[in-house]
């Protein structure tokens, strides 16, 4: 019976969501139980329902839970940000890190960190400013080429490289110890506390809810601009709203976890491949699916990264880079570029 259930489940978006959630719970259980201090399912259960002073409960609630939650929220935020970027630019290769938002935000945050001693709430604001500036420059550069897909990504990559080099320059020119910042720049959720979660979670959840209102406009934005205008769509307003949400989601994530690249690129693609063909551009489903895929990607990557104590950002590049190459090949083969 089960064998006949799974294909039927996978054919409908709700079934897919169910399967995705199951995987998410599974990866959550794994990342809570695996580590230097192994925990059994029973121990996890008792620590979850009745937090006590025991070591197991401390490990779960103070060490592993914030990390897990951050990984999931960051993944969901980045996945949705990627889906929105792809919808607005009508470019399947776009993602927040490839149009320069992440590294722009990172540069601005490092600037604030180095030259001022403001609290971490302001880092997020600085990230928004930096991210918007970097994205505007990228869009402006490829505007004349009508946002030609390859041109947009190349310009974005250039801006990213530039920001990264400028960040290195900044980090080296201050004489204080910057090793912690260096790890942050690789994108990591290690050693985070509830304080970090409380920084990211409200902003991310609020923006994700706002994104839900954009689902219909985003679906319409897939049409030709002239067509949208003729049916009374407000192309410009929708685009600006959507991009603003992308910048907020990305900058909030970057300010807490550092730039985690390629999740925004890969998550929407996985989601679109899994969704039934006629729903692959229905943004109600794409947004939810991207959030789920993003959360899964980052939490599983973090599970693997945790094994060797390397930052999760590195693993994301390792699977994201080849997928970018693969997507480029596919798009060229289809003649889409």
């Amino acid at each position, binding site marked *: 019976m089960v064998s006949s259930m799974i294909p039927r489940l996978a054919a409908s978006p709700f079934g897919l969501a169910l399967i995705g959630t199951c995987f998410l719970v599974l990866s959550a259980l794994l990342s809570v139980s695996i580590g230097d201090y192994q925990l059994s399912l029973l121990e996890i259960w008792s620590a979850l329902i009745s937090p006590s002073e025991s070591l197991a409960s401390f490990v779960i609630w103070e060490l592993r839970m914030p990390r897990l939650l951050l990984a999931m929220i960051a993944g969901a935020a980045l996945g949705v940000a990627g889906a929105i970027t792809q919808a607005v630019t009508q470019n399947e290769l776009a993602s927040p890190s490839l149009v320069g938002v992440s590294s722009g935000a990172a540069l601005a945050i490092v600037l604030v960190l180095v030259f001022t001693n403001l609290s971490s709430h302001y880092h997020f604001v600085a990230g928004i400013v930096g991210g918007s500036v970097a994205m505007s420059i990228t869009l402006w550069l490829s505007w004349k080429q009508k946002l030609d897909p390859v041109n947009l990504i*190349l310009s974005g990559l250039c801006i990213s*490289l530039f920001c990264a080099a400028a960040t*290195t320059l900044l980090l080296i*020119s201050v004489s204080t110890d910057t090793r912690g910042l260096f790890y942050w720049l690789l994108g990591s959720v290690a050693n985070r506390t509830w304080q970090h979660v409380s920084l990211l979670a409200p902003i991310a959840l609020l923006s994700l809810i706002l994104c839900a209102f954009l689902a219909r406009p985003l679906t319409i934005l897939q049409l030709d601009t002239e067509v949208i205008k003729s049916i009374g769509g407000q192309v410009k307003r929708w685009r600006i709203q959507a991009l603003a949400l992308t910048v907020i989601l990305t900058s909030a994530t970057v300010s807490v976890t550092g730039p985690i690249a390629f999740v925004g690129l890969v998550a929407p693609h996985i989601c679109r491949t899994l969704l039934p063909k006629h729903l692959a551009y229905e943004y109600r489903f794409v947004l939810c699916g991207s959030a789920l895929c993003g959360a899964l990607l980052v939490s599983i990557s973090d599970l693997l990264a945790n094994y060797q*104590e390397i930052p999760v950002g590195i693993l994301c*590049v*390792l699977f994201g*880079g*080849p997928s970018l190459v693969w997507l480029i090949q596919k798009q060229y083969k289809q003649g889409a570029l």
Partner: protein
Amino acid sequence: MNQVIATRSDITAKAWPFYGLLISLFVLLVGLFFAALCLGSVPLSIQAVWQALLSSTPQNSESNILWQLRLPRSLLAIVVGVHFALAGLILQAVIRNPLADPSILGVNGGASLAIVLCLLVFDYVQLQVFNLSDSRFNFVWLPAIALLGGTLATALVLKLSWRQQLQPNQLALNGVAIGAVLNALVMWAILAWGGNRTETSLIWLAGSLYGRDFSQLLLLLPWTFIGVFGCFLLLKHLSILQLDSDAAHTLGLNVKRWRLTSLFIAVALAASATAVTGPLGFVGLIVPHFAKVLLNRLGLGISLPHLMVVCMLAGATLTLAADIASRTLISPLEIPTGTLTTLMGIPILLLLIRRQS
């Protein structure tokens, strides 16, 4: 790409402005060289430099600074500049793609990964098998290992863009994606197994000339001779390879063989330089572009021999200037030279991408 190869009569008619350009570049280079010897966290007067240069036996701190620190470093900057500039020029001519550059085609990333892996494996084997805690790695092998890594990475990038006839933008995109993956692998290796090499590896990865001495210069020089000599031997073939492959065939050239040979020499130049100084990004992109603009402005036709000579001089000048800037801007600290060249190179890359569309 539509460079007109100047005929011989053109060249002789415009010989004098060209030699003027060469002489002025050379004077600039020599001037910068002396500036590099004088400037630094301990400024030296030109007389002191001159005296220390003439007496090779170290007697005082000034001549020590000069012979131990500044002279090898500045000479190395010049040599490395020539390496990267020539590599960029050859790549652009052979692939017929103005966006080609060792750092974009993955040479630097591949070379870095090969070197880091090799050092880590060597350390591990030495510790486990021979029980030696201090590393006795023979650095002579580094350029060859870098060459291996660089060749593999470049081959991968070229293979990925082969079907689209190495279309410039796609090639750059593939190269940057592969570069990101290689970089992540390098970071992984360093962070997971780096041990006490972590710090030095990170500095080396940013591309720096800090603390280089004559031994590293001597390590690189054979490769320089092979590379530069190879370039001049290849000149005739390269100017034909700039044409499209059908035309090159008609002129009776074995396109495939000479393409591969030239690519190999370019990769060898870039990888060996990477082995010594770490990746100096975008020098190979900036210098040929700059040289072409310079030759065009002076009304000289762009012929490959001219371009090559100008590139060598301009590459040396650029890296030397970047090195001076990197150790004087925030002295006594240092900015990695590679970061500076990257910051300079990206605007030019953007300009070139713009021109593509």
